[in-house]
């Protein structure tokens, strides 16, 4: 393994019932160039300060637990190698969600949005005996959208969301897209109407922050633009 190097982790902390407001705490740790920011946080928790709280689960970018703001950018701690950052690493919780403790934010407002877009396949026709056919070209349309891990990096990086917490946000719009463009789903228009009515599609001003924020590299704005065009074509407007 590669030689290790000293890093300064500046972590924005908040301890409920103890602190009036968040404060910064610094920790110095030595990490190798293969270590991830998550490894650094674990090392701090294990060796320096067990009171530090943050979420983690899979440790390889598939569960969406460890989203946080690292040196000003929303990203996954388990997918960010320290060697790609300066030796001063500033870590904050995801913006604009209520802080529970340290880097742990309350994700319920985020998930509630997603529940609004009818996030499930709707097809009321009796299913065939075998699978419904979806040819590779049809699947291609949703291939990027289905890789979303709902980490919240995109929505909490969106300026519209910062100023309007009712806004559905890129993540939910992407989820809506995933069903609207699934050839097996029969409720495309209903869902499209829903994301128009619910302060969604029409409120996206294409600030494009989500494009950079997505740790899975999903081109979210391209999906939203496609939805906008579809709504235009169907002449749907807010009811």
């Amino acid at each position, binding site marked *: *393994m590669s030689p290790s190097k000293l890093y300064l982790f500046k972590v924005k902390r908040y*301890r*409920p*019932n*103890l602190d009036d407001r968040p404060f910064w705490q610094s920790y110095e740790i030595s990490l190798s160039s*293969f270590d*991830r920011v998550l490894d650094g946080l674990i090392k701090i*928790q*294990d*060796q320096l*300060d*067990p*009171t530090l*709280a943050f*979420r*983690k*689960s*899979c*440790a*390889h*970018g*598939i*569960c*969406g*637990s460890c989203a946080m703001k690292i040196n000003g950018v929303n990203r996954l701690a388990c*997918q960010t*190698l320290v060697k790609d950052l300066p030796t001063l690493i500033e870590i904050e919780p995801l913006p604009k969600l209520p802080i*529970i*403790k*340290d880097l*742990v934010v*309350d*994700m*319920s407002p985020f*998930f509630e949005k997603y*529940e609004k877009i009818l*996030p*499930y*396949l709707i*097809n009321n026709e009796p*299913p065939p*005996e*075998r*699978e*419904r*056919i*979806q*040819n*590779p070209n*049809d*699947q291609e349309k*949703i291939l990027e959208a*289905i*890789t979303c*891990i*709902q980490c919240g990096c995109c929505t909490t990086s969106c300026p519209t969301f910062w100023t309007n917490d009712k806004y559905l946000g890129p993540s939910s719009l992407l989820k809506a897209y995933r*069903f609207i463009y*699934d050839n*097996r*789903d029969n409720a495309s228009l209903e869902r499209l109407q829903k994301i128009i009515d619910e302060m969604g599609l029409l409120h996206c001003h294409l600030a494009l922050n989500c494009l950079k924020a997505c740790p899975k590299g999903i081109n979210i704005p391209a999906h939203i633009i496609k939805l906008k065009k579809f709504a235009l074509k169907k002449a749907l407007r807010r009811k």
Partner: protein
Amino acid sequence: MNTQRHRFDTVIIGSGLAGLRASLEAIKGGSVAVLSKLYPTRSHSTAAQGGIGAALGNEEPDDPEWHFYDTVKGSDFLGDQDAIEYMCYSAIPTVIELEHMGVPFSRTPEGKIAQRRFGGHTKYFGAEPVRRACYSADRTGHAVLHCLYEQALKNRVQFFDEFQVLDIVVENGVAQGVIALELKSGDLHLFESKAVVVASGGFGKIFKVTSNAFATTGECLSILFEQGLPLEDLEFFQFHPTGLYKLGILITEGARGEGGVLLNGKGERFMERYAPTLKDLAPRDVVARAILREIMEGRGIDGKDYVHLDLTHLDPKILEKRLPEISSFCKIYLGLDPALSPIPVVPTAHYAMGGIPTDKKGRVLRDVDGSYVPGLYAAGECACVSVHGANRLGCNSLLDTLVFGRETGTDINRNLKDLSLGKIPPHRVDKVIAFLQFLRSNKGKERVATLRDALQGIMMNKVSVFRTREGLFEALEELQVLRDRFQEIELMDKSGIFNQEMLSALELYHMINLAEALVFSALVREESRGAHYREDFPERDDVNWLKHTFVYKTSSGIDYKFKPVVITKFKPTERTF
């Protein structure tokens, strides 16, 4: 402490595939609460990469009977054949049903569910590998978990996210409910119910190098064990052949299913020597041991402790379309493009074949005679039906979670009218509170992280792929020392909300328990079968050991009993691949 009380017909612990599939069934019969210490879609199931086994025959002829045979043989004949037969024949409708629910499976050119090869899955009873794994690129678990969660929301299952279960209450031999801590508030919640389903997943975190997520700590198994209920076949813990060197992150067997091969330091395709027919696609126990043998005999890469998984000869399109996730994380974590360079791999602790003994309906057994605990169910990796016996085949775990998750829900619906609403007696609540208080107020010199590292080290060094009586004895003694050291634990975090140090301490306590039960089971079994390999007893011994191990905690220590294996069609034969 603040406590709140809830009443539901069914309470399910765990929102992985098993818990969610059970919930979709149980909600048809009554109210359902799903408790999970993680947000549902963060559950470990989301990490499953390779696929779900089902003999759909979409890409070439296949037959559930072959799947049945492969699973029995893969299990080294320890799996119960009635359960395996049921699972393999149910696989087809199970996968079709997932597709109807909306799972975006990868497709064949005609738009059918695509299938690929996987270890130990063959046609014509072992003749050659078959395409049986139904997959969604290398994100199958993610695709299925999100879909089941969506269905559960649609069907009004109630979720209690980030609720950590601290006790599963069995009183008078009947399940009463569960006690859980709400992480966000620090409050205790009592859930009283007619049925309790344990779907809490595996416990790979007792080992140092593992493919498992942080939350797979197994406390629910230990909670039942502490109440005198048995655990079955714990000695069988699977090491997956291909974990990323040093990291343990999994490279799916699907990579070999798509044509990847293992190479040693001399550039040899060494699996040809160990398994002439199936080669790199032999079952995992065989491949994991082969890799470690190569390393021990000095044939690791540059004489070091890893071998190579070579995908460089594959069509780059296959990597891009069918293995995008592993390609991406090789690039991120190792700075290596698998299209251009081979991947350094070594076996990683992966899957618990053993667990809470159940029958085919998911009912938790209290004894080897088949008697069960009314109202208590278990499904998924925490359970042992047993369909995996001594060694699980790839793609059979997701199948197991879905088939037996559903069976569990069905049986609950069938019996709801006869089950009465549980009652959690105050002494159980007091005991939970006392333990939390002990953790928060105890003074001593021990830290959670130090003890956890020690535990993981013991298990990795003495209880992993190769075992000996001596090593296992030492492990037992060292675990006893750890148990004593645990009494000296002191936490720095005394707070109530999201106290992760306290939660880790709780998990650690149970991990030590489980580790001890596992080592004990491994000592008892004096033979080598599937994933359990004893260097002092290197042969399989059907005369004495064709039976399941049940371990119990008694007032005088751990005790054991045996349960016969159900053999219907396939008589044990020598296992060659």
